[in-house]
């Protein structure tokens, strides 16, 4: 191993301590070191959005961060969404509205929308489409994704009130 460091990263609420090469990206750390393979790796240069995770609550491309940069930080991946095998309202809406076909882009889209719907609980279609510009889907034509995001927002508002 070349230049290495021991880091402690909180992922989905659990602290993981590992010794890693400093050049290791966050996406590879999640997948290979922590076996959290829900985070997908598409383009590895920050264009496709498949590897989007939340770092301290904000969406970020995990292929454009180093694992060492997350020492002491909190990361949330798609594995944090379902609880006890039960899909959360956003995931359920994706199933109901056919928001995915092959599913490769879905983890990144779910994490992007997790942040977006938290910050904008009542978006219109244009705002959802704008929020989705950083995630590429090659199957759906986005229609199902937009429907799912709007349906999830509505359901989450109803549950809250």
């Amino acid at each position, binding site marked *: 191993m070349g230049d290495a460091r021991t880091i402690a990263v909180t992922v989905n609420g659990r602290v993981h301590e590992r010794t890693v090469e400093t050049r290791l990206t966050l996406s*590879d750390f999640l997948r290979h070191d922590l076996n959290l393979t829900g985070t997908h790796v598409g383009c590895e240069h*920050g264009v496709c959005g498949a590897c989007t995770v939340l770092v301290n609550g904000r969406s970020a491309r995990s*292929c454009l961060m180093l694992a060492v940069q997350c020492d002491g930080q909190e990361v949330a991946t798609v594995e944090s969404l379902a609880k006890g095998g039960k899909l959360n309202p956003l995931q359920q809406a994706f199933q109901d509205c056919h928001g995915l076909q092959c599913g490769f882009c879905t983890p990144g889209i779910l994490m992007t929308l997790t942040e977006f719907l938290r910050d904008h609980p009542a978006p219109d279609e244009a705002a959802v489409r704008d929020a989705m510009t950083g995630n590429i889907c090659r199957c759906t034509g986005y229609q199902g994704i937009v429907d799912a995001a709007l349906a999830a927002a509505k359901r989450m508002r109803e549950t809250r009130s």
Partner: protein
Amino acid sequence: MKPAPFVYHDPRTIAEACDLLATRENARVLAGGQSLMPMMNFRAVTPGHLIDLNRIGELSYLRVANGALEVGAMTRQRELEFSTDVGGRCPLLHEALAHVGHRQTRNRGTLGGSLCHLDPSAELVNVTALLGGTLHAVSTRGGRNIPFPEFAVGYLTTSLAPDELLAGVTLPLPRSGHGQAFVEFARRRGDFSIVACSALLGLDARGNIAGAAIALSGMSHAPVRPAAIERALRGQKPDAAAFKAAAAEAAKLDAAGDPFVSAGYRRHLARVLTYRALEQAAARARETAHG
């Protein structure tokens, strides 16, 4: 695609970072990582030492002082995007930010990183050129202020010395009453723009143009401020005829073609976008005057 091995440093102070930059061979500074990380993943850039600025708190600030916006080099684009100071006093910067990549990249990307990367189509570089920003560089030898035209010296190339670090930027705020606009053309939302145009327009008491500033990016290695067009607008009525004449001159500016976009098409966009930016800036200047 993985970065080639490097030695990683995460200094906590500017002084520490300058010291590393002055003493390590083949060192690169990592800001938000939204441009350098892809280049490292592609191995287009293979630094021996990576100096990560993300843990230097003193590089991140945003304040209004002396009629200017003072921004730390590590201030995230999202902080500018959601700042009421920016939205209220410099709406064109706010509009430009909406075109900078995507939410996920603005969460990490920084003003300083964008300026130092100096992509020809970068929106934040355009706005810095329009506002006549001053860049503050530091090194173990001391600090210096660099006006934007002396900063952008070539394609992806700044006048920073190898041991220098960009610490902050001062962006003079447009005087109140100036109309502001930022428009661009890109193939898809969030893509690199092909051409972008920003404009500032001030009107005098009679409603004529007292002063105009225009910055066009995507034409050359750095945004162009067409001084002759700006001068010619002064004293004119802010109407379609004046803006059409300015747009026609913008279409004569030098443009570089590439395999995807010809020079002719860039000049065409310069004409269209210059007109739109001036028209929008004028409408806003009139709104402020009457409002």
